[in-house]
């Protein structure tokens, strides 16, 4: 039995993901997600031992091959203005964003 992503669940995800979608986009994305879920369902049928480890990387990083971490030091950035110039809105070297609307916590 394959799970199905309901419209309510989908709308919740869209809200969490901070995405504004057109109705046509929403319909396409929900359909594709449910199609992908059918493929993912194959995983559920695989017999797994309790002690099968999870793998966050394929290559096992041994102590010898793991690079030393850089020292956590403050370094001057040589091109601050170049980076600030990328921001959509800046005022006196502060990045400006629209107002944060007030919301009453439930």
């Amino acid at each position, binding site marked *: 039995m394959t799970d199905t992503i309901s419209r309510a669940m989908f709308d919740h995800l869209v809200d969490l*993901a901070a995405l504004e979608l057109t109705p046509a*986009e929403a319909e396409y994305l929900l359909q594709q*997600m449910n199609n992908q879920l059918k493929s993912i*369902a194959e995983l*559920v049928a695989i017999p797994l031992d309790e002690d099968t480890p999870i793998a966050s990387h394929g*290559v096992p990083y041994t102590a010898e091959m*793991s690079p030393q971490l850089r020292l956590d030091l403050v370094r001057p950035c040589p091109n601050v203005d170049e980076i600030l110039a990328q921001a*959509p809105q800046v005022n006196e070297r502060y990045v400006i964003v629209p*107002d944060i609307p007030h919301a009453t916590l439930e």
Partner: protein
Amino acid sequence: MELCDTPAYELAVLLRQKRTTATEILNSCLARIEAVDGRPGTLEPQPATLPEDAGKVHAFITLMKTHAMQQAQAVDEKLAAGEDPGPLAGIPVTIKDIFCVRGAPATAASRILANFVAPYTATPVTRLEQAGAVVLGKVNLDEFTYGSSNESSAFQPSTRNPWNPERVPGGSSGGSTASVAAGEAPLSLGTDTAGSIRQPAAFCGVVGLKPTYGRVSRYGLIAFASSLDCPGPVARNVTDAALMLQAIAGPDPQDATAANVPVPDYLAVLDEGVRGLRIGLSPDYFRITYPNPETGEMEEQPVPEEMTAAVRRAAKLLAEMGAEIVEDVPMPNTRYGIPAYFVISRVEAASNLHRYDGVKYGYRTPDAQNDLRLMYRRSRGQGFGPQPKLRILMGMYVSAAQYSAQYYNRALKVRSLIRRDFDQVFDRSGRYRLDALLTPTTPTTAFPMAAVYGNSVMMQYADQLTVPANHAGVPGLSFPGGLAADGMPIGLQLLGPDFSEATLLRIARSYELATESDAWRKVKPKVLR
């Protein structure tokens, strides 16, 4: 042969013998681009299609002509002064537009980064430049690398296959492989997360190498799935791929996953042949399992006979040169590569895409001046195309607290099983003791434009034979293995143990020598005929 079609390793010799200059090489590539590339990809091109678009490659988003001319001139000046200009001196290279090159746009083929100019340069690009390479420009890809055809790029027209512009070049490094196949540059820098170097290399008839995870630094690469992404070379022959890997591989203090493993001399061993090497064939790589588009039920099919025949012939040639071919190697978890990838890559992609918020850089909607949350939603809604949106939502779903045990944790365990398959067959004291596995790279040749795009499930299954190497972290090399009945290139794939790139290159080089006089090697891509 024109300079732009000459192998990089030959250009390096010609340059040192002063039989050509870096500027002449660059001019030859620029003339080829002018002849075959057509207009570059842009956001909402006006008009959307032009009659002259037909038959063009459209590999580029940003051609960096002035920058390239300055670099070529600097190489020529060094040579004139008797200085060593580096092993890749004067060799033009295209860069997949997912890497940062300081001062150049880094778009990721997405509207959300269309106006972003990189403030620093990615390590692999820095290393190419230090080796004397000439950075020719940034080439197209699937948006944020999310696709296997290049069609999802926000920059249209998207790249076409030089062997037949009605077909896709593959993806996501389709701009890289098309630019190399069309002679626009001898080398390109791509990335491979599920097959994104190898699949388009196979589709475009060039060599593509996904190095071991950690072999090449990811610093300056716009992240998709951080535990899977691998930068690597695209070239027209195995020697050039080795030359390029030599330049970009190695530890990097800027990337904590760039492994502290010495880089061998890939060129020194390239011609050592295959005598004594054990090369495996697995039935699990001669069939594909995919969901029936009508019923959704999983179905199994053998890969087309001509792909199997190409692999079998390669095995026979390698055996004649002294390799030992090991049949019936079990790789039982190959079929789970795509379902596991659907989960792992989406979770990592969703995490990486949360940073695009219209605040610090990139696209901000003009339609939400007074509400921060609306600005976030609109900027992301208007800035991302359908494929990034799909990955964000799917990644959030499968990693949600109530589902993560069922999906995400399970996928990470399946990833262990896939890795175990490789460990067992490459184990030096195991039953198989393989040096490499030989497989087809893809289940089909390049498919027609618009034939699969839109169906995100079927598009993903194009990577079924390449994605296991990304889960396992092992290196994979795709190299041309002939032409199919449809006139399109067939790719052969070698997979090996961690950091065995030198062996894979050696095997592919032996095959290249054995097939040097084959008739298919004389056939040029359609755009060059």
